[in-house]
């Protein structure tokens, strides 16, 4: 679970296809910092995918520089894998390509298929998987080696509700473990409130959205905790929560984006000394926790 050592930096990066093709992106400066979640927005065909391919290292820039390449994993929007492997066979191969040993890769493949509710397809040839199940394999492939940089190009498309929520949780785990995550998704509520930075691609250029996306959007979980009198909330918790009110001495009411609730609870329970979790319940204002379409 190695955190990213340094920033991935794009400096004056431009990309065009062909020698005289139009510039898809030009003059892009972007820094991806370890432990952050970055959202990229833009209309269809504006170059979001190209930007993600540059970040993932799949494409080299036509001009400009990319420095600080971390261990990277990428999830494409569609994964029609007409490959002659079974799901677990493919994931084991990809795990070793990502740098795991064969045994670790095979175990991680099983675990991630289980997390996404696809254990039943472990022995199924990829060519026979449905679109959604293929997408689960693509997501598992990216997560099983705990990458330092995770690039998600509409990775949620085609996943069922349970798997979508699981992927949001996995993203929160990656960032809390010190990895960076960059994603594109058409659903504006996807990981709402969680991104540390949001960029918009338009006219072949990249703009940072200055206003911090309101954390009040999207489903939240309310966690009531009791710490030692006068105890400070762990730093991981302070970073992840939307709001923290001290109700009694050492007693807090935390409002947490639903996707980060596991991360917050883990940080609280493993803190020294550990915090006591009094109550976990959905935020009254957004009763649709976990049941979003």
């Amino acid at each position: 679970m190695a955190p990213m050592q340094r920033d991935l930096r794009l400096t004056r990066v431009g990309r065009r296809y062909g020698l005289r093709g139009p510039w898809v992106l030009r003059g892009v400066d972007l820094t991806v910092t370890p432990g952050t979640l970055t959202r990229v927005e833009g209309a269809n065909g504006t170059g979001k995918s190209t930007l993600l391919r540059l970040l993932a290292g799949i494409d080299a820039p036509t001009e400009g520089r990319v420095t600080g390449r971390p261990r990277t994993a990428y999830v494409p929007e569609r994964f029609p894998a007409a490959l002659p492997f079974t799901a677990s066979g493919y994931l084991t191969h990809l795990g070793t390509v990502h740098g795991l040993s064969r045994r670790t890769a095979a175990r991680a493949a099983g675990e991630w298929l289980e997390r996404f509710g696809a254990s039943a397809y472990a022995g199924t040839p990829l060519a026979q998987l449905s679109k959604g199940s293929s997408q689960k394999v693509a997501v598992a492939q990216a997560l099983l080696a705990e990458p330092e940089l995770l690039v998600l190009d509409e990775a949620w498309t085609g996943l069922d509700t349970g798997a979508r929520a699981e992927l949001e949780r996995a993203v929160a785990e990656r960032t809390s473990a010190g990895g960076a995550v960059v994603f594109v998704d058409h659903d504006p509520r996807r990981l709402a409130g969680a991104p540390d930075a949001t960029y918009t691609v338009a006219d072949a250029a990249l703009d940072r959205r200055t206003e911090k996306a309101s954390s009040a959007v999207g489903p939240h979980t309310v966690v009531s905790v009791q710490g030692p009198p006068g105890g400070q909330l762990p730093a991981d918790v302070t970073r992840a929560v939307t709001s923290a009110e001290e109700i009694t001495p050492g007693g807090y009411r935390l409002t947490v984006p639903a996707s980060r609730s596991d991360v917050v609870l883990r940080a609280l329970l493993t803190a020294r000394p550990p915090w006591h979790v009094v109550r976990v319940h959905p935020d009254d204002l957004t009763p649709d926790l976990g049941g979003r379409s």
Partner: protein
Amino acid sequence: MTALLRYHTALLLRSQRWLSPLILYAAFLAVGVQGGQPVLDSLGYSAAALLPVAAWLVRICVTGEPPAARAVVFAATGPARAHLAALLTALGAAAVLGAAATLVVTLISDPAATGHRAHVPPLQAGVAGLLAALACALLGTAVGALTNRPLLRSPGRAVPTMLLAALLSVVVSGSPAQAAVSGLVTGSRSGRVPVPLLPLAAAALLTAAAFALAAALAGRRSP
């Protein structure tokens, strides 16, 4: 790199797309090689026939993945390493094919020069044939690397260019493959077994350059 090579080898073997070039090679050999013919002649023929087969194996290895699967591997290892692994897998498959053919041809052929004028030691002939086959496997994969993605991406242009380049590599004088093959054929007339180390070295250099170019372009010309 080991993991990448294992992945591409598994992809090649399980896809069964290796079957067509294998059948083509077997057909080449069935037409041109018969038991009891002069060994060096037959080895020269089998080495020459390996060249287009090696180019075809490269095409299979670099087009074996759907674009999404290729992107996933490119992200994990970088485009250059991933593409190089595909090329090396094809080279390995061609070398194995060439070695097997050399062994069979050496065993079934007549250990003699053309017209039975002189005895040709089978072991020396086999070694010479193996070196020539390797030179052809190398040059064939170089042709494949330069006439498929990322350099030529549309099949309509890639396949005819590849076939033409493979043919020229066998017949044009100055090509290491042509030098290795004609060395064997000349040796068969004189009864002296050649050691085609120079063509092999030249083929290795050309192939290294071709692989380096293709690997360097892998991330620049996608998707």
